[in-house]
């Protein structure tokens, strides 16, 4: 019979029908009595042929068959569940209560510890409240709390976990009250039987009231009594007290102070805030993703692969609904993917994700990144937590002697190598590299060192690795505080420069990366940097630049360090409102950090700083102070330090080199110019220039430049001109339309009517008299250039001079001032007239026969004015010609 039973169990196990390996089923199948069977099964169990799985009812399995199949010895005879057994067989340890909570030893550690303490508080724990946004796992934690109580025998295993969601009763608080406290038959319509209530069922166990903010005030009050004394009335029976003792857990998404009665809240001594998914960090998010996907994998029975895009989208999406939403998203994606899947793997692509997450999809990623499918195992953040701790431990325990730097560096390199070798995970490395590179580049400029790209990537890798192990590293650092602190002190004194830079980088990373970073990041960067800076071993030299002004010293130091390609100078800026005492203290603080130094160079600018060495707390150090610090002298000294020259020699070389060399160049006044420009070419421009040159009154210093119109219109040509000269105006025949330059058309200049252009433009460089003369000269010279065209025999220059004088005379005789336009016409006309008379071509007819009678007066005036002309050219102006002059003048 024993054999028969074993064979039957084996065959069920083959078919994975574990629920049939139970007494009831076997007895039916083999047609033997339950009692007999139970006896045999127990025998077999005692012989260690069978194991028990404490399902209800108990399942019996063939030990040998299992061990053969999984090639593994079972550790015990009894298992809590099939899952537990399976976990052991598939190499996963059975997780107990809170161990199932992802982050139970990281972000949730504190909370879990508090929960444990609260429920353990004798005799029945204390009421506690979980407060946190929706989907953060409050109910799950309540469930785990119950399991913890069972596992630690705080409560008996047959006591219940009773869960009530108060929001379900939000519209019917009486019903909740009735269900919670129970009721007497007939207490209200529909109360057909006595009901003992949930408090009764929770007696000795755990009562979990979810969404407790939905609990009516009345109901909260009723709970007081129960919480205080463990007694309550059934609804409809106020005479009899019921008793029940249980651990109570409340949960709410609302701010407890606002959502609950103060008196109620006062009775809940422990309020735990459950962090949102975002607050729990990427590491835990990854673990959650892994565990949720794993669950789906199990459910669907297919291996799940996810695309790198899905990975990134899920990782970077902020789930407002926290784990709940993440769970939904993953399930929805699996459903969508399953629908499209026909192989034995399930591929989840970005398009399977819910719309809200897809919306965040950066389309450029699709093109840029190689589309890659990864299996779930690769999601898991590093489980090799040991490595990073090993690494820290090794660093801290290194001998702090001369070989420290070398050993530390090789330790770091080994570690980096491991990380890079371990390169199978998808992570946010690119992001860190990007940040780190920016920060390091910045530092490079400041301190003059250059880090190799490989090293940069390694450091980024380390930070990324580290960020997945924050919790354990932080714990370790806290536990070994003294040791770590000693290590820090050692680095900061023996490798001061590097340490300071490392700290700076560390600070930048900390500020920029939204990530918690521990001190070791700074230390490790510091050690990486050691090789970039010269360490002379016994001789340590410190050089400081100290100068007035808010960044003078640091600017000089930065420039010198960069030019020297080495970090040599430290800088102390002395803002003008800071006194020397403060600066002295700063230097002393600095020197105290640095440790044993041999040479100290102080490069200062002036004043009280020149005596700053007097207040320093140092002994037996070569001190050299130089005033009038500047970049050149800093370079000189830096070079000397680099070459390890003795202090005296360095200083002497500075003295030799640093004489002032001067070159004085006084600024010159910009010459004032008039530009002449003409669209028809330089010819006209030159003519205009000539007219202007001849017209400028003496003592007026104006240069006149001709310029090709097409050139002048070019912006750069004009700018260059404007740079060199002060351009008074441009005179020409076509406006170059340059906004900042005044332009006068030649005609406007000559006619000069209405708004007096000459006065407007030249008012600044000429006096009134000069302007009047200039105007007159322009008209004269312009006329002359025309007269020349028209006069054939006479000397135009001389002729115009005579005519001009004559017409001036006429104007004063007539008490009249001709317009320029008229003057010009008259000049030309009269000049021509004189020549006509000389060549005997006079006009001999009157236009108006009565001219002579009407205008004898005018004829006389003209003749008087022209006397000299007539005499000089030996001509007589006939009255007919005077009529022409008259006609000219009256139209003025």
């Amino acid at each position, binding site marked *: 019979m024993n054999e028969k039973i074993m064979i039957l169990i084996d065959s069920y196990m083959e078919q994975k029908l574990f629920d049939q390996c139970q007494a009831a089923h076997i007895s039916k199948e083999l047609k033997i009595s339950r009692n007999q069977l139970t006896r045999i099964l127990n025998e077999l169990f005692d012989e260690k042929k069978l194991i028990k799985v404490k399902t209800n009812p108990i399942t019996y399995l063939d030990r040998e068959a299992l061990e053969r199949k999984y090639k593994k010895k079972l550790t015990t005879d009894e298992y809590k569940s099939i899952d537990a057994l399976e976990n052991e067989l598939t190499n996963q340890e059975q997780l107990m209560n809170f161990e199932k909570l992802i982050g139970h030893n990281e972000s949730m550690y504190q909370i879990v510890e508090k929960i444990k303490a609260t429920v353990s508080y004798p005799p029945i724990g204390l009421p506690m409240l979980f407060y946190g946004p929706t989907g953060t796992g409050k109910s799950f934690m309540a469930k785990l709390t119950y399991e913890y109580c069972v596992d630690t025998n705080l409560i008996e295993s047959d006591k219940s976990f009773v869960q009530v969601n108060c929001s379900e009763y939000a519209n019917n608080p009486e019903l909740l009250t009735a269900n919670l406290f129970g009721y007497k038959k007939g207490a209200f319509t529909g109360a057909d039987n006595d009901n003992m209530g949930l408090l009764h069922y929770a007696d000795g166990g755990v009562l979990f009231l979810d969404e407790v903010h939905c609990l009516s005030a009345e109901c909260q009050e009723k709970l007081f009594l129960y919480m205080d004394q463990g007694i309550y009335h059934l609804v409809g029976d106020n005479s009899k007290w019921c008793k029940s003792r249980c651990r109570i857990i409340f949960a709410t998404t609302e701010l407890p102070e606002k959502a609950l009665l103060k008196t109620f809240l006062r009775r809940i001594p422990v309020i735990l805030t459950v962090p949102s998914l975002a607050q729990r960090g990427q590491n835990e998010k990854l673990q959650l993703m892994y565990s949720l996907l794993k669950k789906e994998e199990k459910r669907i029975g297919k291996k799940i692969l996810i695309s790198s895009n899905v990975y990134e989208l899920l990782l970077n999406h902020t789930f407002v609904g926290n784990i709940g939403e993440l769970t939904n998203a993953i399930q929805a994606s699996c459903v969508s993917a399953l629908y499209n899947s026909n192989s034995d793997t399930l591929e989840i692509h970005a398009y399977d994700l819910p719309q809200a997450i897809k919306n965040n999809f950066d389309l450029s990623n699709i093109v840029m990144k190689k589309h890659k499918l990864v299996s779930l195992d690769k999601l898991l953040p590093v489980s090799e937590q040991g490595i990073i701790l090993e690494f820290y431990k090794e660093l801290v325990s290194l001998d702090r002697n001369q070989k420290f730097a070398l050993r530390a560096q090789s330790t770091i390199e080994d570690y980096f190598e491991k990380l890079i070798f371990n390169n199978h995970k998808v992570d946010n490395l690119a992001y860190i590299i990007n940040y780190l590179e920016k920060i390091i580049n910045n530092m490079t400029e400041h301190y003059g060192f250059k880090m190799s790209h490989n090293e940069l990537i390694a450091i980024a890798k380390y930070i990324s690795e580290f960020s997945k192990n924050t919790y354990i590293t932080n714990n370790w650092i806290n536990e070994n505080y003294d040791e770590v602190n000693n290590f820090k002190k050692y680095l900061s004194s023996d490798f001061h420069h590097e340490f300071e830079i490392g700290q700076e980088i560390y600070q930048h990373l900390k500020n920029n990366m939204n990530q918690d970073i521990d001190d070791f990041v700074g230390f490790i960067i510091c050690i990486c940097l050691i090789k970039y800076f010269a360490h002379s071993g016994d001789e340590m030299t410190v050089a400081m630049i100290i100068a007035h002004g808010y960044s003078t010293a640091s600017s000089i130091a930065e420039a010198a360090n960069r030019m020297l390609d080495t970090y040599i100078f430290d800088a102390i800026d002395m803002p003008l409102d800071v006194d020397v005492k403060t600066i002295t203290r700063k230097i002393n603080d600095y020197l105290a950090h640095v440790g044993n130094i041999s040479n100290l160079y102080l490069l200062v600018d002036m004043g009280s700083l020149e005596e700053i060495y007097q207040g320093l707390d140092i002994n037996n150090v070569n001190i050299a102070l130089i005033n009038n610090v500047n970049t050149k002298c800093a370079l000189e000294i830096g070079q000397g330090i680099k070459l390890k020259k003795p202090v005296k020699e360095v200083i002497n070389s500075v003295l030799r080199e640093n004489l002032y060399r001067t070159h004085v160049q006084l600024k010159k006044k910009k010459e004032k110019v008039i530009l002449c420009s003409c*669209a028809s070419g330089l010819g006209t421009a030159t003519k205009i220039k000539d007219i202007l040159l001849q017209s400028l009154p003496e003592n007026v210093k104006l240069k006149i430049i001709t310029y090709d119109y097409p050139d002048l219109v070019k912006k750069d040509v004009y700018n260059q001109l404007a740079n060199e000269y002060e351009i008074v105006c441009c005179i020409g025949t076509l406006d170059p339309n340059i906004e900042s330059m005044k332009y006068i058309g*030649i005609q406007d200049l*000559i*006619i000069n009517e209405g708004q007096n252009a000459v006065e407007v433009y030249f008012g600044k460089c000429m006096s009134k008299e000069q302007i009047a003369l200039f105007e007159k000269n322009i008209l004269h010279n312009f006329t002359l250039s025309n007269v020349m065209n*028209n006069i054939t025999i006479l000397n135009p220059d001389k002729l115009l001079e005579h005519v001009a004088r004559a017409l001036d005379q006429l104007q004063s005789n007539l008490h009249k001032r001709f317009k320029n336009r008229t003057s*010009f016409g008259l000049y*030309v*006309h009269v000049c021509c007239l004189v020549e006509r008379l000389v060549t005997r071509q006079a006009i001999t007819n009157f236009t108006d026969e009565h001219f002579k009678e009407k205008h004898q007066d005018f004829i006389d005036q003209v003749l008087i004015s022209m006397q000299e002309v007539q005499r000089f050219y030996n001509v007589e102006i006939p009255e007919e010609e005077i009529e022409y002059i008259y006609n000219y003048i009256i*139209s003025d």
Partner: protein
Amino acid sequence: MLVGLRVDHRLLHGQVAFSWTSALGADCILIANTAVTNDPLRKTAIKMAKPAGTKLVIKNIEDSIKSLNSGVTDKYKLFVIVESVKDAYELMTKADIHALTLGGTKATSETKNISKAVNLTDEEISLVKELIERGDDIEIRMVSTDKKILAKNVL
């Protein structure tokens, strides 16, 4: 409508401006001269000398011929002034003009004095003769009030 074509080496100056434009009742003066169109300064001077209320146009010979032939000038009482006989000949032969006044031309070593203010080279004389033979009406007159002298009588 063309009211007059005149040769004057001074182009536009007092005499022309006041006697001829008013005598002819011209409302538009066309200076047909290639050199002036390229000399902004002379252009300026000529513009300054123009009688008030008269439109002034300065064009080179070629463009002048085009304008005259195209009819755009028809709406004006147009008075055309050229610098030389040669330019006048160009216009007359190419723009179908049959009357010309010789106003004044410069005396040079190659010119013969024809009348008080008119001096012509042999070449110019032959051009004038050609025009006369064509049947054109060519007169010598300095100002509008002078008596007109027919060129064919002097040459």
